[in-house]
């Protein structure tokens, strides 16, 4: 917490000191070829794959080379300067931010997470609350015909089948936002495993683990009775593979799907209070239409880059990526079910981009 406050106030001071509008640092096509390497979030990866060829056609000397591996890897690689950019669905922890004051998380889009299941004979859009999901992942609800699930889904008959909760084995931003949701909705979860890119999962007899979002789909498809949390960027593939999407209860008690309108509603509720260091959770936001598991997709980057040219290339990429007329086009975003960042947040992101120097 202390770390967040320190960083936050620091950002504020800089803004005060330069109250007259500073001249923007240059961006543009690099004079010689530059490759920006990225590794991390498997939720963000499909989006970066969409952006990569487009940024090169906009700036022929700029290449984005994304790789998957999980948000933990993204954060770790950014901390160790192993890659230029570290993709993460989770912002830096206060401890990491304090230990690595040179790092920033820069959001480039908004994403959400679906909860999918594989129950033979069950219809799509079963309803869940965060509390029920937390009890499933604690092993307190173990069967699909349990009364708590039946209570939420009147008129639906579910089979007497063991629930197989699947969780990510790698360090994952999806785990972070999912456990944040459980923490927000279930006392025992908040006091126990709590939230994190990896947490101490309670022992559940049928649990399975999977590597990356793709692995979640693979394992869940192969396992009748499974329930899994899956990033929306691969949700189409999950549905194609035969998984079914659920409705989650939001803070107003309504059950909603992760679609553009519900994600935007959640962002609208939270966006006004985004701090200067851009570290903000959009989990369980207020609003009748708001979807409860929504998050910023971050690229974590060192403020101080080795060369001026590299810093300029990174600024060029970021500036391009957040413009709705360039990288963040509706076509690009809907390809992975992301939504654009709200207008009120953009100036804060632009200010962050200006801090990347050589």
């Amino acid at each position, binding site marked *: 917490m202390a770390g967040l406050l320190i960083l936050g106030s620091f950002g504020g001071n800089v803004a005060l000191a330069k109250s007259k509008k500073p001249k923007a640092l240059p961006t543009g096509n690099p004079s010689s070829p530059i490759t920006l390497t990225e590794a991390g979030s498997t939720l963000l990866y499909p989006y970066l794959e969409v952006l990569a060829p487009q940024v090169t056609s906009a700036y022929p000397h700029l290449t984005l080379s994304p790789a998957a591996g*999980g948000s*933990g890897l993204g*954060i770790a690689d950014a901390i160790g300067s192993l890659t230029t950019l570290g993709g993460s669905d989770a912002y830096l922890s206060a*401890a990491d931010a304090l230990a690595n004051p040179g790092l920033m998380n820069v959001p480039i889009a908004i994403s959400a997470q679906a909860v999918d299941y594989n129950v033979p004979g069950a219809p799509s859009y079963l309803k869940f609350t965060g509390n029920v999901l937390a009890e499933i992942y604690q092993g307190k609800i173990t069967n699909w015909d349990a009364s708590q699930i039946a209570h939420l889904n009147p008129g639906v008959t579910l089979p007497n089948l063991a629930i197989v909760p699947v969780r990510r084995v790698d360090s994952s931003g999806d785990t972070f936002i999912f456990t944040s949701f459980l923490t927000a909705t279930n006392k025992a979860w908040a006091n126990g495993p*709590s939230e*994190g890119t*990896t*947490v*101490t999962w309670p022992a559940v007899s049928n*649990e399975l683990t999977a590597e990356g979002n793709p692995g979640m789909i693979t394992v869940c498809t192969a396992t009748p009775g499974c329930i899994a949390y899956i990033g929306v960027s691969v949700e189409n593939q999950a549905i194609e593979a035969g998984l079914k999407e659920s409705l989650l209860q939001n803070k107003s008690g309504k059950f909603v799907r992760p679609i553009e309108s519900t994600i935007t509603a959640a962002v609208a509720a939270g966006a006004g209070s985004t701090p200067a260091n851009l570290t903000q959770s959009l989990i369980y936001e207020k609003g009748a239409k708001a979807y409860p598991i929504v998050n910023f997709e971050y690229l974590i980057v060192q403020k101080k880059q080795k060369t001026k040219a590299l810093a300029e290339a990174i600024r060029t990429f970021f500036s391009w990526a957040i413009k709705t007329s360039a990288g963040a086009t509706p076509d690009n975003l809907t390809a992975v079910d992301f939504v654009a960042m709200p207008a009120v947040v953009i100036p804060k992101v632009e200010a962050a981009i200006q801090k990347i120097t050589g």
Partner: protein
Amino acid sequence: MITSEGGAGQSAGSAGSQARRAVRDRDLTRRDRLARLGFLVAALVPSGMLLFLAAEIIREAIPAFTFSGWGFFTGQIFSFGQLYAPTLTHHNGVVAPHGAAYGALPFMVGTLACSVIALAIAVPVSVGAVLALTERVPYRFQSGMSVFLEVLAGIPSVAYGLWGVLFFGPFMAAHVYPVLASVLGFIPLFRAPVGFGEGLLTASLVLAVMIVPIIAATTRELIRTVPILAKEGALALGMTPYETVKVVTLPYVRRGILAASLLGWARALGETMAVLMISGNLLDRLPVNIYGSFSTLAASIVDLLDSALTDATGMAVHALAALGCVLLIITIATNLGGRLIIRRASGGVPLPIGRGI
């Protein structure tokens, strides 16, 4: 290709010739001595690397051992703690994230279980296969067999893993494990559910395939050294080929097979990628039954290293180093054990190194 033809050169039998060749300083010119020094430095590089690796991993591991104490070996929970929590835990003078616990028991049990099952299968199969080959198969097929063991030794771990994921695991889960569960269901460990093919038994079986080349190649060399007169004598006494094997061949090679088994075991203990791909990756839990998901020391290091780097206190990396440290000590001990046994057993058969080469 090297072991079979050149092996004897390194054996105890050549000790004499080597001693005879041992170089006396006064025979050497200055350039010779200089060159010898260069060669010596090069010869010490592997040992140097070994010491460096061991020293580094021990250095990295010490804070985790200090933090957990004996709990590192008896604890069942391995968790990096709440990396997003504002508070830290202090224990034994070391700082770690809130809720951190480094108990390696499930990994150690998983490592031992799958390597022991693999060994229990690989040893009889290798010995049986080599006996069939040397005593029963026409001679002209035998050189083909050595190529074959080479291929088996050379197939990359990830290819074994891929095979386990795509074909072997699902096949066993669909056709073999259900039968096993119903026949051996009276033993709790063998009871259903049989899962979908990723877990302890699948990983053990694939590991068994991977260590066959080590054991089989050595056994083949050992059997070649059995005195032909003893065998013929036994046959002349009217023994059946089986009895000859039992009375003459096996006692002669027993010790060598034990040594080769230890080497195979060391390889099984340290195997990473294949196990990672087919273990089902159940961290910090003991498997529910023999088909269940689990994890090993080696596989969990790969799985957790990225998360570990996000721990700002650095303890998570130390904890993984401690896992690596335990693994390193176990494998070195097993390896040395195997080599000590064969040095005393002699018989002139050198042990393969690493993957069975």
